[in-house]
């Protein structure tokens, strides 16, 4: 391996920054993965989020799962929570809808109201 310079050190730091372990997330996305959610296709929704995360090289957003949200007929569902803002529950998701939510809500800061069920209540932590 070549000798590092100080610029290289900074680059490695950027690339390997482990946002996951540092806390201080600006957003949290919860994919509801109860039996109903998984049956309705929560897995492709999760995959879509992971792909978007990798594509945009986002490291300060926490992705987590949770059980049934209690509205099985509207699965797959996901909840997006920006720091300091009330959570938004999205229903009847598809991969495309999820990608749009990621771009506009998570990255853009503006909730995609046409896919949203409700804003506020229920936080998971």
């Amino acid at each position: 391996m070549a000798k590092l310079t100080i610029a290289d050190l900074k680059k490695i730091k950027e690339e390997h920054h482990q946002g996951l372990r540092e806390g201080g997330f600006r957003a949290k996305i919860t994919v509801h993965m109860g039996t109903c959610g998984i049956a309705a296709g929560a897995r492709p929704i999760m995959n879509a989020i992971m792909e978007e995360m990798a594509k945009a090289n986002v490291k300060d957003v926490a992705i987590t799962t949770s059980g049934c949200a209690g509205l099985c007929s509207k699965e797959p569902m996901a909840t997006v929570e920006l720091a300091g803002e009330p959570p938004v529950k999205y229903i009847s998701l598809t991969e495309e809808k999820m990608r749009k939510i990621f771009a506009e809500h998570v990255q853009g800061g503006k909730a995609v109201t046409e896919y949203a069920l409700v804003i506020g209540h229920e936080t998971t932590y």
Partner: protein
Amino acid sequence: METTYRSNIMICAGTGCVANGSLKVKDALETELIKRNLQKEVKIVLTGCNGFCAKGPVMVVYPEDIFYQQVKPEDVPHLVEEHFIKGRPVQKFLYTPPAQKDTIPVMNDIPFFKHQVLRALRNRSLIDAEKIEEYIARDGYMAAAKALTEMTPEQIVNDMKRSGLRGRGGAGFLTGLKWELCARVTGEIKYILCNGDEGDPGAFMDRSIMEADPHSVLEGMIIAAKAINAHYGYIYVRAEYPLAVHRLQLAIEQAKENGLLGKDILGSGFDLDIEIYQGAGAFVCGEETALMASIEGKRGMPRAKPPFPAVKGLWQRPSVLNNVETFANVPPIILNGADWFASIGSEKSKGTKVFALSGALNNIGLVEVPMGIPLKTVIFDIGGGIKNNRKFKAVQMGGPSGGCIPNSLIDTPVDFENINKTGAIMGSGGMVVMDETTCMPAMAKFFLEFTEDESCGKCVPCRIGNKTLLSILTRITNGEGREGDIELLLELSQQIKDTSLCGLGQTSPNPVLTTIKYFRDEYEAHIKEHRCPARVCTPLVKFVVDQAKCKKCGQCFKACPVGALKWEKGQVAYIDPEKCTKCKSCIKACRFWSID
């Protein structure tokens, strides 16, 4: 670019957790994640010591910061299903404080972690110790870069002096001053040395740092080397620390490959090579001049000072020797400034100190706390109090060179000055906690056995004096103590302290002196009444049931392996002296102190 994961599982791979099977848990997790097709979402990372060794194997799951303890390989499928698929922490493996019912899922809410301030252990549970990129990602080598390219040796020394960092090996000498003394000496060849010869029974601070964050030690050494203008360094590690040696070796190789050691580090024109020297585990080699003799291939024996190592050290060249924890403290000082470092701690003891908690505590492990924190907080809040609902009796600080601190001094602030006032020493950071089942003369005897064994034999007071101390303690604990023995112990102890050459002899009588100071009544009971109040010294125990105290519970009857105990429900127990082998199983089983 690194793969994006949604979760990281940090599995502790410190010596303690590995012994508890953490690597098997890691294998089981790998298999299970592949089975569930989660291997691209969930990353497994092996870290150094997490600190909460009592609960091993332990793991921390990010981003939720959930702390799991005592997980077995067979539990893994359930854990993966619940946590990573259904997204709920598994109650069974969460921590529950002693005598409470509710679990605490989040690591930093657990009292053991909550009261800690991590500086020397800043990367604990956060990085893979064997990957240099993970160290760099946490600001690693940025301090070395700053020191090598932006600072003069004088500036480094000044920052270190202003920070108030004192040597973490035990003596507490101002680190910046030590560097300044050596920097002033002219000489073409100088050495930077790291003392990893941790030898106190019950101490594992340095081992954990070397295992968990080896690059932080190397970086501290690079900065020190620049300050004194040394181009060669040694890390002296005892061979009993194979994992520490392995990870340090790996770290040195990685640093060399990346141009962070060797010639022209980071293009700064500064050269430094570092090599590991494995010691054979002699306690005295933790003393600086003995350590240097050992590296030179000579017998590990101390020599008289002056000349001090800063003037004539290894191979008669100016040298600086610092402890592992001291070096680990250096990079953040350079990066964040002296004021940042001095912002916590007490008046003359700045920063934090790492302690290894062991003995009769609920939460055994490795902790880092601000200097000046009350001893009580360390033992009862972080340490979780005494095991089995017993009472706190004393804590031995500083290992065999230190002394005991009794319950009456439990509010003592933990810093160099205040601990010294009690007669104990900060030492390198071992805290062995004792409950009322510990006999203090027997405890002093245990440590004297250690120092008698480890004395290099150079000075007569240490070689013969410690042996004599031990023989007096042996006769006291055998019930053959004589009138005047306590005075003899005191006089001899003082002479050994006054006339020994090195720290070993100067401190070896401390356990005797402090136990007499605080527990003189126990010595008197042994000598005058032929009684061991803690019922530890077998020759002084009668093995008779006290009729008045016996609660007729039958625990002693169940514990006796030779059928010497006679007991029936509702009856006071009786020990048959003919059959009794004095194994003390009944004494350990009795909750009412009714066997004398």
